[in-house]
């Protein structure tokens, strides 16, 4: 059940000024990308955003912490 919920989570990012900082403004549940975009526009309408993006949480890759082993470390 938990995995199914996570699969449908989208993170929402936006910026107020074109070229300005991109902020993470929240997340939402949606069964697909099209509805995620529709929902995001209505739920996060507190500002006049210049741009807004939705990203499936499952597609976000972890860059840090870096858990890959260093050469020569451990048993390898």
């Amino acid at each position: 059940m938990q995995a199914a919920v996570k699969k449908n989570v989208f993170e929402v990012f936006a910026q107020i000024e074109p070229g300005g900082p991109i902020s993470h403004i929240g997340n939402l549940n949606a069964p697909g990308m099209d509805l995620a975009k529709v929902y995001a526009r209505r739920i996060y309408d507190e500002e006049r955003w210049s741009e807004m993006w939705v990203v499936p949480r499952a597609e976000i890759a972890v860059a840090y912490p870096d858990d890959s082993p260093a050469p020569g470390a451990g048993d390898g």
Partner: protein
Amino acid sequence: MAEAAAEPQAREGKELVPETARRGFRSSLLACADTKLLLGYHYGEWTFGAPSLEAAIAACSMGQDELGHARLLHGLLDHFFGLTQEALIENRGGGDFASIAFLDRTFGSWADLVAANALVDLAVTLEIAAFRGSSLGALRRVVDKLIQEEKFHDEHARAWFQLASAHSSESRASIAHATRAALPAVLAFFGDPASNHDRELLATGIKTRPDAAVREDFLARLGRLARQAGFAAGAMSPGGELWGETERIDWRAWDADRRRTVSGGPADELLEHLSGAKNVEFRRT
């Protein structure tokens, strides 16, 4: 989102609607206003029972838009025809409403809401767009606002159609079934394409696009949507118009004042909610 209704009559004197166009104009405005009022009710009702909290917010938001639009159109009905809100909501029975008949009853499922969103909502938006550039200033000034606020509703409907087709054969079948159920009442709203029933509206410049062309546009849009969603190809006409040629509507039963072929109207329990009959003691204090 929809704002509180503007009062067009406050900014200008009354505009006269030519006698020859009064009946057609009144029925068109009334059908749009009544349908939006009922749509607002149904969207609002499905704030609870929606598939997710996000879907509930979207339904609630669309309901708010529709009620705001209905209020805006009530302002126009008052401006052009002296129809007060009391006369429009409180003093009418179901048989007086000009709303699209698919909205007469409580929706049985989310699929009904999606069909209403994709068909009924779109039909009314296209009909209102047919008044773009109208010779009547009070009308002309609100048309673009109404259409712009409907963009979200259109995106919502298209997204749900696509989702239903991709999700499961059951969800696709339920949306296709609801779509088929809604279509005759929506086509009745446009009237008989061979009748030229809106010729006086066009001749006076009140309306800029005939209902027959609006109907064609509607069917083309719906046809594209249904094809993309993989709906019942067997029900498509050879020309690709969704069910356009397979529907048989008895135009002899068409009520020109209500733009419907189905008698009756919204159920009493719906009208009771719309009129606020339970809270009459708080009205106009």
